[in-house]
């Protein structure tokens, strides 16, 4: 029997997901043995025309990382969808939009204006912006145009499975590939990670009080962080209660709070709303003024609760108030 063909592809991403795959390949040659990598532009020399020449469904599975921000990315995702029996959204950006998805807080115009005209080191008296087409003395140069918003992969194409994380943990990548090879994938639409909250696998779980109540949240630079005690119990905004496990809690081992890159468990529609309510329930007060004060201490709710998931959220993007192009900081 021939080995199943697998493809890897990137869209708007940082390269960290590719590094995670490289980290996997180092110690799991069994994966490489089990599949035939048919397309992986970052590491192997294949072309779009090779993919176009494939029969529909010829690829057993394609792993796509990165969010969708341009027509080129969308076209490629659609092409790979046709050629693949299974598409896996790989990593936070493909899954829920990721950190680049925070760009949905601002219009494309305000982003271009800031980067090319407003930054203090930029000298641009004529206000030049990158153009889709530029006539130079020798000919015409073209650039892709960015979409108005950042989208998740499943907002562009149909997705069968999700591998969460920024980047996905190596153990989960390995397990997903092996499940694919062995035909042991769960029901379509599943997130290929344990369906419990991070607190359940946290190495500090024993130090989390049975009933945790807080008089407000602290910021990490404000306290000396104990290396053994539950970070929530220390007053830090740790998103462990709302976040899916499976990462092995490396940020907690680094003595910093969970920021939610693994996304929600299956019972949650909107990760940020869930995280917000989970943490709000910890606040120990019945006094309205005191509660307002506690909530105001959470100075950047969007960047805190929707850091990796704004495009996937019910909001998707921020609508800028009339007369305020570019808007201001969200808090």
């Amino acid at each position, binding site marked *: 029997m021939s080995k199943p063909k697998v493809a890897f592809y990137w869209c708007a991403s940082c390269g960290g997901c590719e*590094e995670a795959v490289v*980290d996997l390949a180092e110690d799991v040659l069994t994966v490489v043995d089990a599949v035939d990598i048919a397309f992986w532009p970052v590491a192997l020399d294949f072309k779009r025309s090779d993919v176009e020449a494939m029969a529909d469904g010829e690829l057993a599975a394609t792993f796509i990382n990165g969010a969708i921000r341009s027509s*080129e990315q969308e076209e490629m995702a659609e092409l790979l969808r046709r050629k693949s029996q299974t598409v896996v959204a790989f990593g936070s950006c493909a899954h829920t939009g990721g950190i680049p998805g925070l*760009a949905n807080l601002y219009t494309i115009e305000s982003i271009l204006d800031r980067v090319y005209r407003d930054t203090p*080191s930029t000298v*641009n008296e004529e206000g030049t912006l990158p153009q889709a087409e530029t006539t130079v003395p020798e*000919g015409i*140069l073209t650039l892709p145009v960015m979409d108005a918003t950042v989208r998740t992969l499943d907002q562009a194409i149909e997705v069968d499975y999700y591998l969460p994380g920024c980047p996905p943990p190596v153990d989960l990548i390995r397990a997903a590939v092996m499940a694919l090879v062995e035909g042991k994938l769960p029901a379509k639409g599943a997130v290929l990670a344990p369906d419990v909250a991070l607190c359940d696998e946290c190495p500090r779980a024993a130090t989390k009080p049975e009933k945790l109540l807080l008089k407000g949240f602290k910021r990490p630079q404000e306290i000396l962080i104990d290396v053994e005690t539950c970070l929530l119990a220390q007053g830090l905004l740790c998103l462990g209660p709302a976040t899916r496990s499976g990462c092995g809690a490396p940020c907690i081992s680094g*003595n910093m709070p969970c920021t939610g890159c693994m996304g929600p468990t299956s019972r949650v529609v909107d990760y940020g709303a869930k995280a917000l309510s989970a943490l709000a329930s910890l606040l120990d007060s019945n006094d309205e003024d005191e509660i307002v004060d506690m909530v105001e201490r959470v100075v950047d709710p969007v960047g805190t609760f929707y850091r990796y998931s704004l495009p996937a959220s019910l909001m998707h993007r921020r609508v800028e108030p009339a007369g305020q192009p570019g808007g201001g900081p969200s808090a």
Partner: protein
Amino acid sequence: MTREFTIDPITRLEGHGKIQIFLNDAGEVDRAYLQVPELRGFEKFAEGRRAEDMPQITSRICGVCPTAHHMASTKALDDLYKVEAPASAKKIRELIYSTFFVEDHALHFFFLGGPDFIVGPTAPKAERNILGVLGKVGLEIGKEVIGLRKQLRELISLAGGKVIHPVFGLPGGVSRPLKAEDIEKFKAGAAHAVEFGKFCLKVFGDIVLANAAYVDMITSDAYTHRTYYMGMVDAGNKVNFYDGDIRVVDPEGREYVKFSGGDYLGHVAEHVEPWSYMKFCYLKNVGWKGFSEGGESGIYSVAPLARLNVSDGMATPVAQEAYEQFFSTLGGKPVHHTLANHWARVIELVYAAERMAELASDPEIASPDVRTIPTATPKEGVGVVEAPRGTLFHHYATNERGLITKANLIVATQGNAARTAMSVDKAARSMIKGGEIDEGMLNQVEMAFRAYDPCHGCATHTLPGQMPLIVEVRDAGGELVSELRRD
């Protein structure tokens, strides 16, 4: 009639870096353009974020060098809160950073740039990749490279939480002290890295320097530009990646200016072209004079060659010896040969490994005192480090609650953007004559830009592997008259 070539180094559809070559009627190169077709807008969506989240947010600019952004951002937070990290915390940061440098430079030397020299610039394409490198140096060495990379990346995880997007940086220190057993692992990793660095020097000497044709190529005019250079130096003007002043030398090698990172706006400016999403850095007080070299043009260069050019030496013994050999072999300072970046990168790898060993053995590294709690009201801060690919600037302004109101980021690759564009143009002019192109020529054009280890907008994903090249020749009407694929 103008003919047009497109070299897209990643793939034709998704090029995060694209080379466009225009030919004139005589088939000579009119001009080659290097374009970067992507922007993600971190400088804008940073607005409104908590300052302390910036080290983790900006690391997502690049998953290949997240530690560099994390570190520059953390130093910007120190400055923002006007807080001094304890000496132990600074040493832990530099230990992590040195470990990262060894790993990152090794990746480039063997996987990305190495094939050009170790296998050879004119070798068949099928051999000009990591497998070809292993064929030349032996499979055992390949296992060694992979093993070292794994070991060093695990060390970064131990100290920094995660290796891809670490979490250790806080204003005034690091998030946790090192455990005694982790320090022992760092010592072992450092010893391994030092031996590996010496081996890399030997490989470079045996394969590249011993080959007169390679040395001729390095020093050939096609790969030479006389520009300014920028890099970070310590108090003794030795190369430093983590901290120090920024020193700039002119094309004659004389110190042009030395400034502290916080004063960068007085010295560094960015130029915008409508045909690329990447901005081009230049020296503000010399000025933007277009894509031209020499002392009248503000274009400068960063990264390994630049760092060696601006410094008076390396702070560790084996690297210092290699530094002296470097300049004596290549005719003294400054060296203007772009391809010498590969050698300079190996010398830096050795320095980073030796520095790692020094820090891992420093008794202070074990101190539990790794934090200073900031008390000042935040307002504005600048953090600068040397990323593997050059000087990296993070600059934040905040409100009194520590929310970002403005962010300015100058990534390392931008420091080389203008010179890289000139290198690609010059190599194209040198290699392509009379409209004749072949694969070897294209590779040599590509080599001009690969020497910089470019990470365009820190988003080109230049990872291990063969970069496909597709060249299309079109006539003035846009008709495809011939096509060459390197695949």
